Each structure stands twice: as C-alpha cells, then as structure tokens.
C-alpha cells in the first residue's frame, strides 16, 4: 500500500515535468487529466476503503480526471487554438526551474515540523512541488488555457496536501475547493470565448494593451 501510493506520487511529479516541458496543448491537458486520475487513487491507497475516501476519490476522478479536462479539450476545439503552448520563457529554462523547485521542495520538506508518520513520505514534497509547478505554469505561459491548466495543477497540489488531513478535513471543504475550481474553469471558458471574439486570438498578452 505504502509503496503503491509512493509510486503514484512519483508519477505525479513526472507528469509535472512533462507538462512543464511539453509543447502541445492537448498533451498538456491529457497529462493533467491523468494526474487528476492518479490523485483520485491516493485517498484509497493511503487511508483504506471507507465511505469518506470513496466519496473523495469518486469526486476527484469525475471532476479532475474526466469533467474538467473534457471541458478544456472542448474549449480548445471551439476556440480553435493552435497546438503550441507559446511559453514566455523557453521550455528548457522552465524545465530547469521546475527541477530546481522540485529539488528545493524535497529539501525544504525535511525542515517542516510534521507529524512523525508524515516525516519521511513523499506526500508533502510532492504536494509542494505540484503546487509550485502549477504556479510556474501559471506565470510562464501566454495562453489563457494553459493558465487554467496551471491553476488546475495548483489545485492538485492542494488536494495532495488535503489527503494527509482527510481524517480531520471535512468533505465539505474538499467539495468547496473542487466546486471553486469548476466555477473557475467555467468563468475562464466564457472569458476565453469573449477574448477570442474581441481579439481573434486568446493570447493574454494583448490584454495588457487594453484601453477604454
């Protein structure tokens, strides 16, 4: 059980790297969807099968793994985005930054005052690494949809963190976060359509040149 959840977390980190380095929008969305699906396994693997964890896993799988990626894929089809991600800084520097951050979180996690059972696991560093990778994606990409992806990844990081606390954390909080995210994606979709119609591109850089 323990090594299985570690394996899942490791795949999550690899998917972080993949999303940071990948040039294709569709592949990025699928990677984040797979990440969401992997995260859905974690509550069951780390806490055993109970009603609470089943609900958490099912919700995560439906929303993170299926519904939101489907919305995003639909969005890029409708707005007819070209496939390239167009990073603000190149792929290799982004990857390097991501690796530095990941290594940093692994070192940093050892200094945190944690419970003894969380001390050596991969949970905390992976949560932080996913969080910061999402942040990096949010910062370094131009297209609105990749920023949504970054936001999604950031939420994945919070979710991993939440799994450790899932005994203490009521389901309502988790559901609230997920709902927030869903609303965020919806709003982003509407905004994207709007930007696309006004500017015939969804490059958010053009927004900084807005005048009244």
């Amino acid at each position, binding site marked *: 059980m323990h*090594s299985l959840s570690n394996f899942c977390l490791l795949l999550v980190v690899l998917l972080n790297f*993949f999303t940071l380095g990948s040039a294709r929008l569709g592949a990025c969305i699928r990677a984040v969807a797979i990440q969401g699906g992997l995260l859905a396994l974690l509550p069951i693997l780390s806490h055993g099968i109970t009603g609470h964890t089943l609900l958490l896993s099912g919700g995560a799988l439906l929303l993170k793994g299926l519904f939101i990626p489907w919305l995003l894929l639909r969005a890029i089809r409708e707005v007819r985005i070209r496939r390239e991600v167009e990073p603000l800084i190149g792929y290799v520097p982004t990857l390097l930054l991501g*690796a530095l951050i990941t*290594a940093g979180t*692994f*070192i940093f996690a050892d200094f945190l005052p944690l419970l003894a059972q969380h001390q050596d696991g991969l949970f905390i560093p992976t949560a932080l690494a996913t969080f910061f990778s999402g942040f990096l994606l949010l910062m370094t990409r131009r297209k609105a949809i990749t920023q949504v992806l970054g936001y999604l990844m950031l939420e994945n990081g919070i979710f991993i963190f939440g799994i450790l606390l899932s005994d203490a954390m009521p389901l309502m909080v988790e559901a609230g976060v997920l709902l927030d995210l869903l609303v965020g994606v919806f709003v982003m979709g509407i905004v994207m359509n709007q930007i696309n119609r006004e500017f015939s591109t969804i490059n958010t850089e053009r927004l900084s040149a807005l005048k009244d």
Partner: protein
Amino acid sequence: MAGFLLHLCLLLLFAPLLQGVITRTKALFAGRIGAPLLQPYFDLRRLWGKGFVLSRTTTWVFLAGPAVALTVPVLASLLLPFGGLPAPISFEGDLILFVYLFGLGRFFTALAALDTGSSFEGMGAAREVTFSCLAEPTILFSLIVLARISGGLSLNSLFGPHLAGAWGTGAAAPLGLILVCLFVVLLVENSRIPFDDPNTHLELTMIHEVMVLDHSGPALGMILYGASLKLMVLGALLVRLAFPWQTGHILGDVLVFLGGLLVLAILIGVVESTMARLRLVRVPQILIGTVLISIFALVLVLRST
C-alpha cells in the same frame, strides 16, 4: 573461463534476434506479416559475402570506424552482468570505463563519417554527437544513483542481487525514475524512433543512418552487427533493473535474462509503432528532461539514506 565463453556466446548469438523481434512487432502493428525473425542473421551473412567499395579519398580511419563499432560493445559487455550471471571482468570504477567505451565507439563512427569528406555525413556526425553528449549525463547520473543504493562502484555490485530487495524499500521510487531515463537513453543511443528512425533515408531527418551511408559490404555488416550488440548491452542494464530476480541456477538466470530482453524488444517495437518521430529541435529538450529526472532521482536517494 566457462563464464567468459557463455557471456560472449549469449551476446554474439542472441543480439541480432532482438532486431528481428523489433521489426516483427512493428510489422504486426502495421498489419503485415513481416520479415522472418532470423532475417538480421541472413542480412549479416549476405553482407559478409560481398566486396568493399572504397572511395579513393578515404584513409584507414574509414575502416577503423566499423571495427571499433563492433569491438566496443563486446568489450563493454564484459564489464556488465547479464541478468544473474556476474560480469567476467570487474573492478572498482568500471562504470566510468563502461560509459566512455561507448564514447570511444561514437568518436570513431563520427570520425569515419567525416573521413568521407561528404558534407552530408558531417551533418549526421554533428547531430549524433550533440544528442549523445546530452544522453551521457543521464546515464552517468543513473549509474551514480545505483552506486549510492548498492554502495559499490563496479557494475557487478551495482546490478548485484540486492536490487530485488531494493524495489521493496524506499529506493523503489528512484529506481523507477532511472528505469525511465535509461529507456530513453537506450532509444537515443540505438537511434530508435522517437529520436531517430533506423529505416529512414530522408536526407533532412537522418542522424545515425547518414553516418554509415558510405559503408558497404562487410564494413556495413560490422556496423549493423555492432548496433545490435549495443542494443543488447544497453538493454541488459534495463532488464537487470526491471527483472532483478535470480533463480540461483545458471540456466534459470539465462532464461530470465533472455526473456526480459525479448520483452524489452517487443516494448521498443510498440513504442516505435505508436509514436511519431520527434522534431529535431525537440530531441535535446527531452534529453535535458531526462537529465533533470535522473538528478531528481539522485536527490530522492540522497534524501532517503
């Protein structure tokens, strides 16, 4: 001495079969029946019976390339345990010799390509050298991770029997990571599809094939044979990592090893038939990614021990 001979026999007899398995898998994916599994052996025999065609502008370097390409994998294999069989030659630090033997082979292949004086071959040599210098850190970092886990510095102890136990402990995560990294290195070094197409003869995209374009007859045969030996030697690293079980009996060990190699060959065939070739500018990016992943694996190992 018996181990020495068994090692060489396994390597020399089994290696071309892997190429046959890969071609067959690709053919099955494409819905064809494909060439017979033993086709690489027939090809080698046919090439061996032919004569040389040598350009008057070439020197001895042109013939040294194929010779080195054939001997290097044989020498490198002697340092490497084949599954449960220990390596015939082993000393502390032989992992560095192992990595740089391949560097030597690459140097001579590139030199032989440059010796022809064709600008086209020079282009291939430049590409090959660029990619392999990016693949080298990955393989070194992966071996350092293994060295840290095993506590030894020879390939024999790196791939020793402790691997089976290590998969169950905290070392499983970095082992999984370097397995991925080494698989990518295997594909790059053997010019397999996401990075280079071994069957292509399109001028703009060829990397390794363009360097051996001017070789003919026995020289080409030596290069092809050397390539299949290289595939087997690098594959042996992966097979040992992924199937670390030891039966305790020589025959069982050999069977586990050869079975693992066949699975690996099928896997390569599947990857080749399901993936498209990457654009040239994307290859260094992927390789830098694997370097980072192997460094990350090292961080994980250093953290857990």
